[in-house]
Structure formats: structure tokens, C-alpha cells
């Protein structure tokens, strides 16, 4: 799974923090490194000054092992070295026995030198700063005439240096942290300000489906700079164009519906007109030969068939185009009515209609929109199919999906028509030659029913349009009301 990318408003502060952290680390490292060097140098200088200063005064008393003289020299040398001073100074003879120390209670005269002094002590110029809080132990050999006579040891408490280092560390940390946080906040505010217009655009583009693209209010434009205002103006112009296009598309769809209705009315009038001639002929026959029982019976049969035909046409038309706000499930007869409706058009064009309605009971899909869809498809198929061609319909419920397929033997839907059905293009010009009417309407109705529509070009020629609409879970116990 891909990680969600950081928002732009967070990226720059993150970059600032990373950059400042890197700079702070390098600077802090260098400062502390220099501080370590300076402190080491100071320690070495103080130790060397202390030990060298004592050496001259101590050599003779050490040769004589004069306890008092050695102590007196150490006692007089006590002084501060700006926070860094020897805590203990111990003078030992050649055989590593203490002659005297600055703290005689801890380092008793004539006692053996602690082993730590022998192992850890280093000349002043080899001393180093310890970070474990321990003490530095310096030594200086005393000699007379080239012969060693004893050694002076001095311990230095490094706590003041460690405290100084800690203070510098905290100062660095606090300063760098403050600068980093300050710059990060500044970067965040800057980016927030810079991307304000983009965020507004994004919010308006991501409006709820059905709301369309909402223009940005004028007061919003007042809060951004000149660039933002230009951007908003361009966006609002685009939103207006989109809105006008949507209005136009809706109007076109309505006009298509009216055109479809007109064609149906024309077909219906033709269908009614056909038997009318026969009816008038039968009436004329009845006027002339009504007294003959056989003629009367044949004429009345003819009148009855003609009227039945007219009644069927009128009924189907009523069912199809009645103003019915109530949603009703699709009955098998609803499809069969369509066969009757398109029958005149099929006959007029000299086509063959193959009808395979496998529905045997009501199906829980909206009846009215589906009939409109199938009627449009059948009329288009009839229009596309050349004389003597075949138009077929198959309806079946498979796995809770109503599948209705309409075949024709025409040249097939062109790319634009297929794109309209697939939703890749709108139907603004769907009335083009060969594509029939109402393809946008078909698509819209199918989508509203939660279904899909697709077209394929058949190998044998012609087009197959397949509509699949899911069946609702609960089937209302209602019968088709067609009267």
C-alpha cells in the first residue's frame, strides 16, 4: 500500500527541520569539539603551571625529605585558577612514599603512594578531559643533577569544566531548538498562505456529486493576492461554462424524449389509420349489404378486429407514456406491450422481429424507465436494420440481474455512439445519422437504475446492446396496473 503523501503545507517545515537539525548538529559538534580542545589546553596549562611552580620550591626539601618544608610549599601554593584548580597535591619520594600532601589527613606522610597515582598519573601535556566526571591526575618528576629525587602529583577536579560543557550544550540545544521550531512555524505559515488559493480551488472542485462545480464567492477572492484573484476568476469562468453545458445537455435530453414521443405518435397514428380504412369499408359494406347475415357477420368481425387493434395500440401507448409517479415493478407484459408498440414500425420497414421474453413473473426493477430504455433501443434497432433484416430481443433474469439484449442487423454503432453509451462522451450531438435517438437518455436511465449498458459489434454484422439492471432485494407484491 502506498503511503499517503505529505501535504504541501507540511513538506517545507519538514525540510526546514531536517536542514536545521543537520546544521545544528554540525555546528554543535564543532563548538563542543573546540570547547574540548580549549578545556584540554586550559587543563594542561594549569597543571603545568602548578607543577612547574612547585618543582623549583620542592626539589631541595624533597631531597632532605623535609616534611614541613614540603607541606609549607604546598600550603602556600594554594590558589584558584579561574574555577580549575588542583584538589590534591601529593609529593612522593623516589621510593613512592608520601612526603607531604596538601591534604595531609587523606594522604598521610610516610604512607605508601596510592596505586592509582602510579598507574593513572600522566605528565601535564598528556592530560585529557574526562567525560565520566572523574579527576585528572597529573605528575611531574623532580630531579637534581640529572638524578630523579621524587615526584609531584596533582589531581584536578574536572567538575567545573564538565559544568561549563553542560551549560554550552544546553545553550546550543535550546538555541538551535528555538531557531528550528521558529523557522518551521514560519515555513508552515508561509506555505499555508501561499497555498490558500489552491486549497480553496481544491475544495470547490471536490464538491459533492450532483452539486456540479461551485464557483468561488467574491469575498473569498478578496482575501488572496492578485495571482489568487486571477486564478479564481479563471476557475469561476470554467465553472460557469460547465454549468451551461449541463443545462444544455439536460435540455437536449428532453428534446430527444419529445422527438421519440413524436415518432411514436406518428407510428401510432399510422397504426390506427391502417385499420380505419378497413373499418370504413366494413361500415360501407354493412350499409349496402347489412341485411345479409354472412356479410354482417364478416363485417362485424372485421370491425371488431380493427377496433381491437386500435384498442391495443392505444392501451400500450397509454401504459408507456402515462404520468405515473409511483414506482412499479416490471411485469412480463410490460415487455410484451413493447413488442406490440414497435410492431407497426417493424412491419412498415419489412423487418423480422424475434422476441424471447423469458420473464415469467414481475421483476423488482423500475418498470417505467426500463420500458423507455428498451423502446428506445428497439426503435433504434429498427431504424438501423435494412429491409428483411432481423431485430431481436432477449430478456432474462440471471443471478438477480435483469439482462435485456437488443440485436440489429445494421451497420453498427459508430465510435461516438459507443462512447456515449459507455459514458466517455456526452450526448450533446447524439442525434447523428445511424445512431438513433436517445442514447444519452438510455444511458442516464440505466445509470439511475444502478445498471450498466454496453454495445458490441457482432461478427455477423449489426450491433448488440446489452442492458443489465440489478434486481432489488424485496419484491413488492403488486400486479401490473395497465388498465
Amino acid at each position: 500500500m502506498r503511503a499517503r503523501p505529505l501535504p504541501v503545507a507540511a513538506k517545507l517545515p519538514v525540510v526546514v527541520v531536517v536542514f536545521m537539525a543537520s546544521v545544528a548538529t554540525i555546528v554543535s559538534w564543532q563548538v563542543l569539539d573546540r570547547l574540548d580542545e580549549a578545556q584540554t589546553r586550559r587543563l594542561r596549562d594549569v597543571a603545568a603551571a602548578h607543577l612547574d611552580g612547585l618543582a623549583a620550591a620542592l626539589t631541595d626539601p624533597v631531597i632532605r625529605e623535609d616534611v614541613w618544608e614540603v607541606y609549607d610549599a604546598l600550603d602556600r601554593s594554594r590558589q584558584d585558577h579561574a574555577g580549575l584548580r588542583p584538589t590534591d597535591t601529593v609529593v612522593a619520594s623516589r621510593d613512592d612514599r608520601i612526603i607531604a600532601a596538601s591534604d595531609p589527613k587523606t594522604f598521610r606522610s610516610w604512607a605508601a603512594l596510592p596505586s592509582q597515582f602510579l598507574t593513572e598519573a600522566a605528565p601535564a601535556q598528556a592530560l585529557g578531559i574526562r567525560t565520566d566526571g572523574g579527576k585528572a591526575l597529573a605528575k611531574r618528576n623532580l630531579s637534581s643533577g640529572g638524578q630523579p629525587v621524587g615526584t609531584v602529583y596533582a589531581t584536578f577536579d574536572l567538575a567545573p569544566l564538565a559544568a561549563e560543557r553542560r551549560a554550552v550544550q544546553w545553550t546550543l540545544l535550546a538555541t538551535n531548538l528555538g531557531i528550528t521550531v521558529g523557522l518551521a512555524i514560519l515555513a508552515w505559515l508561509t506555505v499555508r498562505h501561499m497555498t490558500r488559493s489552491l486549497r480553496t480551488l481544491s475544495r470547490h472542485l471536490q464538491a459533492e456529486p450532483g452539486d456540479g462545480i461551485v464557483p468561488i464567492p467574491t469575498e473569498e477572492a478578496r482575501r488572496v493576492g492578485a495571482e489568487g484573484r486571477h486564478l479564481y476568476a479563471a476557475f469561476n469562468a470554467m465553472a460557469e461554462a460547465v454549468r451551461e453545458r449541463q443545462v444544455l445537455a439536460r435540455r437536449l435530453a428532453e428534446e430527444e424524449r419529445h422527438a421519440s414521443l413524436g415518432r411514436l405518435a406518428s407510428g401510432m397514428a399510422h397504426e390506427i389509420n391502417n385499420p380505419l380504412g378497413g373499418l370504413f369499408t366494413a361500415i360501407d359494406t354493412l350499409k349496402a349489404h347489412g341485411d345479409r347475415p354472412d356479410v354482417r357477420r364478416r363485417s362485424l368481425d372485421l370491425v371488431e378486429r380493427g377496433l381491437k387493434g386500435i384498442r391495443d395500440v392505444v392501451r400500450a401507448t397509454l401504459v408507456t407514456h402515462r404520468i405515473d409517479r409511483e414506482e412499479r415493478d416490471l411485469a412480463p407484459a410490460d415487455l410484451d406491450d413493447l413488442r406490440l408498440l414497435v410492431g407497426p414500425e417493424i412491419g412498415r420497414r419489412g423487418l423480422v422481429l424475434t422476441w424471447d421474453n423469458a420473464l415469467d413473473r414481475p421483476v423488482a426493477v423500475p418498470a417505467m424507465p426500463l420500458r423507455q430504455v428498451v423502446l428506445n433501443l428497439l426503435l433504434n434497432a429498427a431504424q438501423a436494420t435494412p429491409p428483411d433484416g432481423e431485430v431481436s430481443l432477449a430478456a432474462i433474469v440471471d443471478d438477480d440481474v435483469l439482462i435485456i439484449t437488443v440485436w440489429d442487423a445494421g451497420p453498427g454503432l459508430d465510435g461516438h455512439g459507443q462512447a456515449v453509451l459507455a459514458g466517455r462522451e456526452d450526448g450533446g450531438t447524439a442525434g447523428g445519422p445511424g445512431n438513433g435517438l436517445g442514447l444519452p437518455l438510455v444511458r442516464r436511465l440505466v445509470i439511475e437504475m444502478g445498471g450498466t449498458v454496453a454495445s458490441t459489434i457482432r461478427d455477423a454484422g449489426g450491433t448488440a446492446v446489452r442492458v443489465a439492471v440489478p434486481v432489488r432485494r424485496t419484491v413488492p407484491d403488486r400486479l401490473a396496473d395497465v388498465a
Partner: protein
Amino acid sequence: MTPWRPSRREILPAAMALCAMPSIGRGAARTDEIRFGLTPVCLTSDLELLARLKSYLERVLGQPVRLVTRRTYQEITSLLISGELEAAWICGFPLVAARSRLALGAVPVWRGRPLYQSYLITSRDRQADGLTDLGGDIHAFSDPDSNSGWLVTAAELTAVGQSPDRFFSRTFFAWGHRNVVRAVGSGLADSGSVDGYVYEVMRETEPSLIERTRIVRASEWLAFPPVAFASSAAQSEMAVRFRSALTRMADDADGRVVLGMLRLDGFRQEDIAIYGPIAAKIAAVRGLPE
């Protein structure tokens, strides 16, 4: 005649000059100069005292006086005997020890008597009631020629069949009573032998040093460290005037200032017999077979 009263501003440069004198190391004294040797029987660390003493003596004697200090009693005693000094404030021990070549000049009077004590001291927090409690100590003596700072303790040990080297684990000389107090106060020595007079004066002048110590034992009263002359010069006119300058110090305003700083009542002539107890101690110590 109005006595001259030097101000501190005048004395300090004089004191600095005094300090520089021994290091300059004049080979020969001026013929009219009186050389007065001082040992740590008094607080030779007090430069103002030395300057005022010199000033008083010069005025009264009417001639230049040079104060000479050395690290040990031995050096001062040797200089006195050899005629390098006209007078010296030494200890009773070398006076008695070199009785044939030294003469008693004057004896300081302290708290009404020409007597003082030797103290055994130890650190303030230590429990000790006498010399026997100090066995095995690191012990600080003042000077091998000091009565209170060595002889008294050595004689007491001799009396019980001991010697300093055996009774104490270690001993060392601190070359001055004040240094003994410092050594004991710092812990360099566990105990020390010190001049009771110096100790009591320090109680006023340097209480911070004294308060780290306590007195374990005070000895019997013994004759105070005297001002001595070489025997050969004991009856000279200079010796007479010098003795007079000392014994009349309490009668002079400047002299009283000096005596006040020394916490002394004055100087007076005493018979050498008062140093008999010290002579007995010397005999006792020297009589101990090695």
C-alpha cells in the same frame, strides 16, 4: 621631646625594606649598627611588629638597629656566639646549653611573671588527656634547640624511659611554633609540642588556626625565652644600653605599643638561676643512654 610615632604608611615600606635585608646579605655590618637576632620564640611573622620594634630600639639607642631572622635557633645562636650579632632573643635551652659563651640580658614578663609553659596540642576533635595518649603519633616539634618545642616533651619521655623516636611513629621539625600549630591544625601531624606563650598570642591574632587544635597538656611553668648577649660583650656599654632599652620599654609610649603587640608586660633582669629547671631537663635528656 615628642616621641616619634610612625604611621602605618611609613612603617610598611620600612617593613618591606626589613624583609629584603637578609636576602641582600650584607657581608659586613656598619660599625655603628646593632644587630639583633630574633627566633620564632616571638611571632617573627608579624612584619609591623618587627618594624615598630626596630623603630623603638633605634630611637632609644640612638643608632641603627638591624633585625636578623634565621630559620633555626641554631643559626641565631651560632651568629650570637661568633659575634655576628650583638644581641638575640633566643630560647632558654640554647642559653643554658651554651651557658659559658652566652650571658642573660633580659627576660620578658608575661602575665606578671617571667615564665611560660610548653603545650602538647592535638587536633580539636581528638580525645587525648596526656602525653601517653599520643603514642604512635606523627609528632611535630618546633626546633631541636627549642625548650618548649622539643626539650620539655623529650624530657618527659625520658622520665618514663622513652625517647621521641621510639614513642612517636614519626617526628619532624616545623621550624617555628606557629608552624607546629599549622601542622597539627592541617592534620600533617597528629600532635605537636609548642610554646604556650606563642599559642596564647595566636589565640588572639590567628584564632582560625588555633580553633582547629586543642591543648592536651600544659607543662610546668618555666623561665621565659630570654634576650642574650655573647659572654664577651655582656658588660659592654652597648649591652648596658640595650638591656636598658628593653627594661624601660614599658615606660615609653612606642615601647608600650611594641609590648602590646607582643602581649608582654615588659622586660626585666633576672638571675640565671631561674633557668635551673631547663638545665635539669637538658641533663636528663642527655643522660639517657643511646
